[in-house]
């Protein structure tokens, strides 16, 4: 009788433990399911959608064409993050005065060269480039 009791307790505890382990593994699998998911491609057309006037829509279209057909075949030469073209389109969208936007873009283009001094900008952790958003 005692032997049966010990056996049944062992069996039940084994089943419970096994089920628990499997349930845990099931959760673990779901957690790592998207671990090696490739990064999604940047949708540059999104920049063209928020245009409020003709200037913005013209530059947005130029930006999308440049990004899709010219920049995509170019070497990775820009030393900044975001790149000069993204910086330019963000300036045009966010600056109220387009004159200031063009001045900021010109300034950025003049600063973008391989001799930029180390330590002048924060380093973007993902790209390893100089971090220079329009807020700077």
């Amino acid at each position: 009788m005692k032997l049966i009791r010990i056996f049944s307790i062992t069996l039940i505890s084994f089943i419970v433990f096994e089920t628990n382990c499997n349930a845990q593994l099931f959760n673990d699998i779901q957690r790592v399911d998207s671990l090696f998911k490739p990064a999604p491609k940047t949708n540059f057309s999104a920049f063209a959608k928020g245009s409020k006037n003709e200037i913005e829509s013209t530059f947005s279209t130029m930006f999308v064409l440049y990004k899709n057909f010219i920049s995509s075949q170019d070497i990775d030469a820009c030393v900044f993050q975001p790149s000069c073209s993204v910086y330019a389109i963000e300036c045009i969208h966010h600056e109220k005065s387009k004159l200031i936007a063009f001045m900021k873009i010109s300034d950025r283009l003049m600063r973008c060269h391989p001799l930029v001094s180390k330590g002048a900008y924060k380093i973007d952790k993902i790209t390893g480039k100089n971090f220079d958003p329009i807020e700077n």
Partner: protein
Amino acid sequence: MNWFRKPVVLFLVIINFFSIQLTYCQNLDAIVDFSDQQFAKGNFELAANEYNRALFFGYYASDQLCLKIANCYFNQNQLEQSARFYDRAYFSSSSDSLKTEAILGKSFSLILDKKYVMALSELMNIDSAKINNQEVKLNFLKGIAYFGLHEDDLSEEAFRKCAEGLSSNTGTSEIETDFNAIRKSEKRYNPHTAWLLSLLVPGAGQLYSGEFKEAANSAALLGGLLYLTVSFAGKYSVFEAIAVVLPWFQRYYMGGANKAEKLTLEKQLANRYQSYQSIMKRLEVECQKNQMK
């Protein structure tokens, strides 16, 4: 100090002394109980704070507490913190099962943080003779870590052992099929071949990776620049053509080759991810089957 000698006062002092001790012990237990409840409800932040409080005030089972705190951080996706507490649990415990659980937890945190080498070095510390029913999880984590390091043979072996642990023979052969698909894809999409092809004929590398639009784009861009060089040379001089247009041509020529290499690598990684998802799906099915039994 005559009043202190009175038996009633003395009695009250003694009772108070012990009641303070008792209240103190009860409080820590209550805190841990409350934290356990919060953890079960999914309030991991609150649970972690309360466990930390109990740890600070010297709760007796610090190793278990560290493990619980680590689990809280793990569920909040604070991976560095969770790894730190799993480590603390490992070093403050003398129980083998708790040590194993701590290593497995730390390795899982490191894997989610994409630190595969560190995760593997932790997993190597586990003595497989002592881990009883956690061998499936050990092999599962090893499989993922090796997969992240592109060590496909070792990863396949670990995933197969994991499927075997879930008592499935069909799972192991299907895992082999998935890994064969990865190997086939890596042979088919070789980034170096794409790069070389693009250097030989601009756009050929993109064609090799199956990106026809990109191939046409690269060929058109470089064709245009070549036409510009020739027309410049005819209109002005060869020197001017070399000085003005050739740097642009070189830039987009190399850019095109790099792009072809990148596209092929992306293709390879996308196929790799597909196979990985298929492996995970198979393991998930095996788990569900096992639970139904």
